[in-house]
């Protein structure tokens, strides 16, 4: 299967770097087990992403490691997309790790957190490097299952519940993914990404892959776990969960859907629709929340909708993909940075209260999310829009209306966030948490500029207005809502999960009753 690939002479240092980028977090994790090395490992754990960062930032473009005897023929390596994802993934993990060192300073079960976190991280980084389906899936699974430990880290009742739902959805997603991948691989006649991207799997296969990864991405209806799991995790974990791990699903789409090669209009349309729904649905339910982190989680649902639009458009119109791919990538980068900064900030706010400097620090990424001109969000949205408006008839018009409206919604949601943060009573003074957060916020605002594709948007007032207008309108609406508050309906976090859960519980109870009756009858 690997024969079709270019074999290039690659220096040993490349191999070593690739292995180290994945092996180093895993080695640290194992080093946590024996009591003798535990302290050392804890100390080094925040630095676990460094080799990966080295790979992403420095290593030459054709870094490939082929291990034909591993799994179904493993190929690790970097392409442009992978490099981008690896970069923001490693960076976010680094920031979260540094933050976590302070956050967990007094935590008794530190090493447990680090263990799961390192395993998750290894999986997350591995996903970025995987160039074949089996290794991708292996890392993906490692990430998913290890993240369970992060979700339930606090051991609170909500955490168990969130963990349970997370796990159920994750397993469903993984299995569906595997089923889809089986079919895809069968159609492609190989397991390498390079094979798959130029194949035409059946719509069923594409649908399964889409849906399986959609759980991670948080597509509407598949998002149920997200608003539960992200908030209950410790703050640094939430940051990576929402910031980069959702992108692993996105990356999966980019890898295993024949984007830009074959057209799947129906699935593309469905994705576009789901993206649209997600954008507004996330906002709508998020506005009804009163927990900072839940609001952020719903915001993630909404934001992932934007990226879903991109992928949906790619499936719908393969011709647009060359434009869309960098836009989606940029959007992912931007969202990863902004969302993790917001989560880290929310953690600070929850500790120190709604102080002004905290609000200011939160406002920066919040504005970026809303797409205020000259922020990373603005760049990303502009790039995406450039691709989307080229879609065929109904979509272009629909999106032309929907995107500004979505920006308006995002603004409202962010305002809600700031308002909620503002209301937090002031507690302790500034903390060790603050420096990593602020540094990250700053870095996050700048980084997207480095990945801006060709200038996408006419630098005219119309453009600015279209970008800034919704934001402005949103701020006004937010102000009005602040002054004359409406009684918003209280929607529980996880929204639809609640009735589903009740239904399942009722079924289980009925089953148990039947069992008992059968036992008595005997």
């Amino acid at each position, binding site marked *: 299967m690997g024969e079709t690939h270019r074999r290039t002479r690659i220096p040993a240092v490349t191999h070593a770097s690739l292995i180290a980028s994945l092996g180093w977090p895993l080695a640290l994790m194992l080093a946590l*087990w024996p009591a003798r090395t535990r302290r050392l490992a804890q100390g080094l754990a925040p630095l676990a992403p460094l080799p990966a960062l080295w790979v992403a930032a420095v290593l030459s473009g054709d870094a490939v490691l082929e291990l*034909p*005897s*591993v*799994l*179904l*023929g493993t190929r690790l390596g970097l392409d442009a997309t992978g490099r981008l994802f690896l970069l923001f993934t490693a960076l976010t993990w680094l920031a979260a790790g540094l933050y976590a060192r302070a956050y967990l300073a007094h935590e008794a079960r530190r090493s447990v957190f680090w263990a799961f976190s390192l395993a998750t991280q290894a999986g997350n980084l591995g996903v970025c490097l995987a160039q074949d389906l*089996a*290794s991708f*899936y*292996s890392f993906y*699974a490692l990430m998913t*299952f290890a993240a369970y430990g992060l979700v*339930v880290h606090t*051991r609170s009742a909500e955490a168990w519940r969130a963990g349970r739902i997370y*796990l159920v959805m994750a*397993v*469903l997603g*993984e*299995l*569906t993914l*595997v*089923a889809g991948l*089986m*079919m895809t*691989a*069968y159609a492609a006649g190989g397991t390498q990404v390079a094979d798959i991207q130029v194949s035409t799997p059946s719509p069923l296969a594409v649908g399964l892959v889409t849906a399986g990864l959609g759980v991670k991405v948080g597509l509407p209806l598949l998002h149920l776990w997200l608003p539960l799991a992200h908030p209950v995790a410790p703050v640094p974990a939430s940051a990576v969960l929402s910031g980069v791990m959702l992108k692993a699903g996105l990356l999966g789409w980019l890898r295993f859907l024949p984007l830009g090669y074959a057209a799947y209009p129906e699935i593309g349309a469905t994705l576009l629709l789901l993206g649209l729904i997600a954008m507004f649905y996330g906002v709508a339910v998020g506005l009804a929340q009163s927990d900072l982190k839940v609001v952020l989680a719903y915001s993630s649902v909404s934001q992932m909708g934007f990226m879903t639009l991109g992928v949906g458009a790619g499936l719908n119109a393969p011709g647009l993909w060359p434009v869309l791919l960098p836009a989606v990538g940029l959007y992912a980068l931007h969202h990863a940075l902004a969302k993790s900064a917001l989560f880290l900030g929310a953690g600070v706010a929850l500790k120190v209260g709604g102080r002004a400097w905290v609000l200011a620090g939160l406002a920066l990424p919040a504005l970026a999310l809303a797409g205020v001109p000259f922020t990373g969000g603005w760049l990303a949205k502009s790039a995406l829009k450039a691709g989307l408006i080229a879609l065929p008839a109904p979509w272009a018009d629909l999106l032309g209306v929907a995107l500004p409206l979505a920006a308006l919604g995002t603004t409202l949601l962010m305002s809600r966030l700031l308002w909620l943060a503002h209301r937090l009573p002031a507690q302790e003074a500034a903390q060790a948490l603050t420096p990593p957060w602020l540094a990250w916020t700053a870095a996050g605002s700048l980084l997207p500029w480095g990945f801006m594709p060709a200038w996408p948007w006419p630098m005219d007032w119309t453009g600015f207005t279209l970008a800034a207008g919704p934001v402005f309108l949103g701020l006004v609406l937010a102000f009005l809502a602040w002054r004359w508050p409406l009684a918003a309906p209280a929607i529980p976090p996880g929204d639809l999960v609640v009735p589903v859960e009740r239904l399942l519980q009722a079924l289980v109870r009925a089953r148990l009753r039947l*069992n008992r009756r059968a036992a008595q009858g005997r």
Partner: protein
Amino acid sequence: MTVNEMLPLAVIASSLLPGMVIFALPEARVGLRSVLNLLGAMSKLVFVILLLEGVARGEVYGFRHTVLPGLDLVFKADALALLFVTLSTVLWLFTTIYAIGYLEGSPHRSRFFGFFSLCVTATVGLAMAGNLFTFFVFYELLTLSTFPLVVHRGTPQAMRGGTVYLAYTLAGGALLLTGIVWLHGLMGQVDFVHGGSVAALGPQATAQIKVVFLLLIAGVGVKAALVPLHGWLPQAMVAPAPVSALLHAVAVVKAGAFGIVRIVYEVYGVEYAQSLGLLKPLAIAAAVTIVWGSLRALTQDDLKKRLAYSTVSQVSYIALGVALFGPVGTIGGLAHLVHQGIMKITLFFAAGNYAETLGVHKVSELDGAGRRMPLTSAAFTIAAFGMIGVAPTAGYVSKWYLGEGALAAGMDWVVAVLWTSSLLNAAYFLPILYRLWFRPPPAAWPAEHIPARGWRETGWLLLAPPLITAAAVLVTGLFAEAGWSPLAWAKLIAAREYLQ
């Protein structure tokens, strides 16, 4: 008698003879018995390695002895036989070590180890059987030698289990016998040959041949625990853990599955079976079993019973692989023969460790056991993920090939079966893992027998085997495409079955 004739016999004798001596040993000769056991296991391993090397080179190993005119006892150590022989031999070694630790100080050990050796003898004999008659001989020997192990504890519960076990397996044996004699009557000696030999009977015997197929498959299906012939397996779980581990998870059920492989490939020939339309019903039966076993496993609180139902489900993957017409499915099924073995034996070792160390037999009592016994639990976790089919474990690899095989065979629905099965596997394994690792341990364990000493959470004889097999689960999965992996061997066999 040439070396090539003697080597298969040596493999059989290397467990038979120690077993016979052990029977006669007084109870107190622990040391000698252990040495004999291990010596047997080691020497068997050496013989098997010699065979493996030879077969890979293309040597032919076999032996033939006439019992009645037109009825021969035939052994042949071909690639397929060696797949199973190697599995049994390696796992026998580990299980023997484990059993020595597990049964330390319990009564009737001579009897136990004697029958244990006999069981392995039966298993390797069955694996190397060169015709249906020989297969049947060892098939029944396996039944008989496992019975004393099932009832080893001598409790009424054990007796019930033993009775059910016998009722099923002997009835299965009767069906198998009928089928074999029938076929024998139709075409004389039925040797296992690549591509099968039944096709030579021609079209006028088709109806009979179909009935015979049903008889044969039902006969071996009992041991393979195909639904609805699976009822014995959960009952047989009253046996001591090493028995459940090696025999019911590996040897006995595999004997059935292996029989299906031989019958389909080397009696009927897979092309012929396909042309008669026999494979699809088999696939459906396997699929039903896969799902049903998992469903039953969901509601079991007894850990070993849950594992037993899981076995019911997992073993049918092999049958499924066989029924998927085409080399890829075959590879999946055959690889799973090995993969399921090492995964399930790990699970049973771990279950045995919980029982023996802490007195824990139920899933609901496992809370926090991971903290008390992290190594055992880690092994359990790896194997459980393997069962679910999570990459990069062995289970993933076999499921992958099965899925690909199904697609190649145009039986796309099998993917749905795999999906459902994996989901159910997750549904009954993940809660166990959750309890192991995330629940707080109780104030006291039900019956803590073995104290923890440092990192040794239990006796080292109990600890080493599951760790090694768990590592094997990872390694066989991770290095599935390596030249020495079970998968590679399965590919070799599949190539021989389909290219000749």
